[in-house]
């Protein structure tokens, strides 16, 4: 499965992270080069903040992707299929709508996003359990149905609210964004959560490898499959919620990073987790830099939201990765 020499693979991954960070520090919406003038320090700190935030979100999404793919034993699985991003979107919309009705100042909707994510997660978890065991197909179906329901409720609130700030904020948030807030205590907390779950998954690395076998075989080899699934579901969901809270729904990183890591490092979960995390960071930093690069080409246009960029770049890359697997169903 491993196509690369492990040392060469690690060199490539680390070089990609360093290249992305270098690009991040050398470029912003104003152009390429180190910032100058009175505000040079501030401009540089903005670049650093963006780099750190993008890396954090990238790592979080990538690790949650690995967890979800292990949970569903499906390399195409992705946290968003559980409807968590639309759950967060619904929470934001509901919070904004409530603020509008009560005539109080709107906020960024962080509390609403968190509640929306947690409620969605709880419903997904409870509805997909059969006799205390999480049913994989049931999990997918419940996720898809919840995403549809959440989407419909968002549209309903959108309709009731009418044009204005609430719609604008939701649209902006749904496109994914990193640039409107500096690093804060929330990011420290998010980093802690991410590190904690990454460590937990690394500890469970061997169990994850064995769990790629059939449930019965894994159980015969001493793995408590039910407990492992619960850990994976919790990890994927909390990590996704964390990333969504920081940057909105950002697509494809949770899919592409684990795929690239598998190509470079093989399917063993411990190196796969670390490799995916690094690749996720590099990918999101690169997408953020690319967004700035396009803005820097023309001062008469604004910035493309990073979520749009990851989808534009991630879609073709994902199809490219998928090529060898397509057509197998027809053979």
């Amino acid at each position: 499965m491993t196509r690369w020499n492990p040392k060469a693979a690690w060199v490539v991954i680390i070089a990609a992270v360093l290249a992305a960070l270098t690009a991040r520090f050398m470029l912003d919406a104003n152009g390429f080069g180190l910032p100058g003038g009175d505000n040079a320090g501030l401009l540089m700190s903005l670049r650093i903040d963006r780099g750190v935030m993008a890396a954090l979100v990238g790592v979080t999404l990538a690790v949650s992707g690995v967890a979800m793919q292990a949970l569903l034993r499906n390399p195409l699985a992705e946290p968003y299929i559980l409807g968590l991003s639309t759950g967060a979107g619904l929470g934001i919309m509901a919070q904004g709508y409530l603020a509008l009705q009560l005539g109080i100042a709107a906020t960024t909707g962080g509390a609403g996003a968190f509640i929306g994510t947690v409620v969605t997660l709880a419903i997904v978890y409870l509805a997909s359990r059969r006799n205390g065991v999480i049913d994989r197909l049931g999990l997918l179906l419940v996720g898809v149905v919840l995403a549809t329901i959440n989407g419909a409720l968002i549209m309903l609130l959108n309709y009731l609210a009418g044009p204005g700030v609430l719609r604008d904020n939701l649209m902006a948030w749904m496109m994914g964004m990193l640039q409107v807030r500096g690093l804060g205590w929330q990011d420290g907390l998010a980093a802690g959560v991410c590190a904690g779950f990454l460590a937990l998954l690394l500890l469970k690395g061997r169990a994850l490898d064995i769990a790629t076998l059939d449930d019965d075989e894994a159980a015969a080899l001493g793995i408590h499959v039910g407990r492992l699934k619960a850990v994976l579901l919790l990890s994927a969901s909390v990590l996704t919620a964390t990333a969504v809270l920081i940057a909105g729904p950002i697509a494809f990183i949770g899919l592409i990073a684990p795929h690239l890591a598998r190509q470079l490092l093989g399917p063993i979960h411990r190196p796969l987790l670390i490799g995916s995390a690094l690749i996720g960071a590099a990918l999101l930093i690169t997408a953020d830099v690319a967004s700035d690069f396009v803005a820097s080409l023309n001062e008469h246009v604004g910035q493309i939201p990073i979520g749009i960029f990851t989808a534009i770049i991630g879609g073709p890359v994902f199809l490219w990765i998928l090529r060898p697997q397509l057509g197998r169903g027809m053979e």
Partner: protein
Amino acid sequence: MANAVVNRCLLVLMLSLTLLFAIACDQQASGPSDPSQAVPEDQPTIVSLTPAITQMLIDMGKRDQLVGVSQDDDASLGLPVCGTYNQPVIARIVELSPDLVLTESPMGQKSDVPPLLRSIADEGVFDLRVIPHSRSIADVERALIDAEVGLGAAIGDPEAAERARRLMSLRIELVSAVLEGVDRPRVLMLLNPTTLGAIGTGVTHDELLRLAGGTNALAHVKTGYLTLSRSQLQETVRPDVVLILEPNGSELADGDPRLRAFENLSIPVVTSRRFSVIDHPQTLLPCTTLPEVLVEMAVVLHPDRAAEIREAYDTAELVIQQPEDADEDGA
């Protein structure tokens, strides 16, 4: 077979990306501007993050002080784009080093502003003022002259704001005076004729319509914006006139697709063919250009009074000018 399909998809995607990139590069109209050159030294340089504020500043005679505008502003201003009020391009704003950044929120509170913009302002890099978003003509007046949150106070020129307010108010007063006692047709105002997205009550355009000598065909609804069905059009709304509010919209032609929702209905407007596009570039902005939109609406609704309406509008400037001339003569 499947691979061939994927290859074609990838080719199309790559070509699309190339095209996107080419368009972005093509829009590189000019090199980095130095907007501070034209601004008098004792005047603050301003970045406006909403088109309504930009327009009010221009009408206050402050065009020269603008160094950056929002993504939704008229591109012909030729100023660097600094994003939108909820997704500002922070690095570009900092690079422009404005003295003042102006944005909007429903409540006129700083807490509604993106946190990073707020925190940079708190560091003293620029002054940040939040103007309350307007939902009525009185709100626009307040946004101009309020001693605490008004534009005049924000830019340190309350006289200019008061002049702009007086001119706007007088224009509205004189134009509406021409229309006193006229027959008031039932008017349906549409934001989106395809989906029948309509304007209800309690918003600026409802107020403008009354002043323009019309009756809102949706006066019975309690909401500002709503989507209608064809059966509602036929049974309850039954407008005499339909105004499509579309900034820079094209004129309606025979068989115009925008009027498909009205096909085969038996209502007065279909018989009279009184469909019109209100195409003023600032049609939807609650700002100092409201009198111009009012004139456009009034002329459509009462074409027999068109000359009087336009004369009343022009008179306002003369009326405002006369006391100033008299003051100068006295001096």
